[in-house]
């Protein structure tokens, strides 16, 4: 009878438990239907990476004296363009592999240093001391006419 059908834990499918199940799942589905667009809204869309692989800089070779460096924007990312004491031009990604700060060329020690957590790289981009876990990535540097050209290696 009706009183038997309402006994909890009887394990029998009753009209009441069926209705509760329907209500519960539709409530859950409604919540999910609200959450799905909101959670997706929070994740920003991927920005389209510039497909360029070669960048001609508005820089002359003479703008960078030996044993000095400067940050140049390459495809929206900072790149360290520098000249070794020997006179050779080189470029490395300037984003520290530790926690994303921007590194700098240290002329007095002829190395590359990140001021945030004291990470040090040599002029080949190899991490030599401090917390950085990986080396900086090398980029190709060429001189076309008078201009510096940086290419993704």
């Amino acid at each position, binding site marked *: 009878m009706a009183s038997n059908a309402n006994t909890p834990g009887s394990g029998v499918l009753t009209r009441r438990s069926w209705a509760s199940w329907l209500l519960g799942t539709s409530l859950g589905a409604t919540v999910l239907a609200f959450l799905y667009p909101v959670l997706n809204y929070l994740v*920003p869309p991927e920005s389209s990476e510039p497909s360029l692989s070669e960048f001609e800089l508005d820089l002359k070779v003479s703008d960078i004296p030996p044993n000095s460096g400067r*940050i140049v924007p390459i495809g929206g990312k900072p790149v360290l363009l520098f000249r070794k004491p020997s006179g050779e031009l080189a470029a490395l990604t300037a984003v520290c592999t*530790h926690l994303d*700060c921007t590194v700098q060329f240290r002329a007095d020690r002829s190395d590359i240093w990140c001021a945030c957590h004291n990470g040090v790289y040599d002029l080949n981009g190899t991490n030599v001391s*401090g*917390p950085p*876990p990986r080396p900086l990535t090398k980029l190709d540097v060429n001189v076309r006419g008078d201009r510096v050209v940086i290419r993704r290696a």
Partner: protein
Amino acid sequence: MEWLRDRLGLEALAHVAAKKEVPIHRYTIFYYLGGMALFLFLVQVATGILLLLYYRPSASEAFESVQYMMAEVPFGWLIRSIHSWGANLFVGVVMLHMVSVFFLKAYRAPREMTWITGALLLFLALGFGFSGYLLPWNELSFFATRVGTDVPAQIPVVGPLLSRILRGGSDVTGATLSRFYGIHVAILPAVATLLLGAHVLLVQKHGMSVPPSEENRTSRGALRFFPDFLMRDMVGWLVAVGLLAALAAFLPWELGKKADPFASAPSGIRPEWYFLWMFQALKYLPAKVAGLPGEMLGVFFFGLLGAAILALPLLDRGAARNRSSPWWNRLALLTLAAALALTVLALLPAGGSAR
């Protein structure tokens, strides 16, 4: 007045206010810290609302709008400096409040949820500090945000996505500024208001906790909250306002240089004082510890510490049974000493560079 009283149920309120008491004992002074934190929070709300009238949340205008406020707007320097100094004072008072509640064992049953809402409010305070720090869009805050949003990226599996959501992209840009602005002025205040309401209600429900060492004393007096304790509270608040005004007038908060995404991180860069211990720990962590990435280990440890603080009333079995918990006290002292030592090391001039 009677008309209002009947309709608003003011009698019940007056009844509660008349009954509320603050116990008097050796440690009564620590009861003032909660009220002080609440007051400083309200100062932040008031000055924050005023800052909204001039601030512009975009990468091209944020720095300039703060500069304009500091230089041109009448008393703009005062409002902004009070907001910046007040934030630091607020975090400091919240920390002191938590430390005193810990050692006075005020999180014993039935006040576990009061502690847990309080711990969540401390995390929110740090979130307020971190998100607000970026808003002037200067060099220091730019790199602080680069680091601070790359730290969660070290969490396995969900880390990179979490970092993307925080930054509003793969880099810290104007999109990050928009997000942090929304977080700082809408999301965090909404959550903080709810939590603060729950926290203060719980304190009213359970009354002030008396520390175990004072509990058995028979001749314990009590102070009426209204007006006796509140008056004393207000003296403290007046002193706080005076201190804030003096700090703002004599040491106006600096603005620094505008953020340049294509400049190197400046030497001597470091975060606000309450993040220094984390900052210094990240410096010492080597790239690999027992085959695991150092930063990942650091993030794991920070997370563990946060979880331990949050769940303390459930973990501290001794206090739960109203017995003393010497090991928890020692652990807390050790943690505090380590955090203090790391902070001091970060402040030493050699801490900022390899020189």
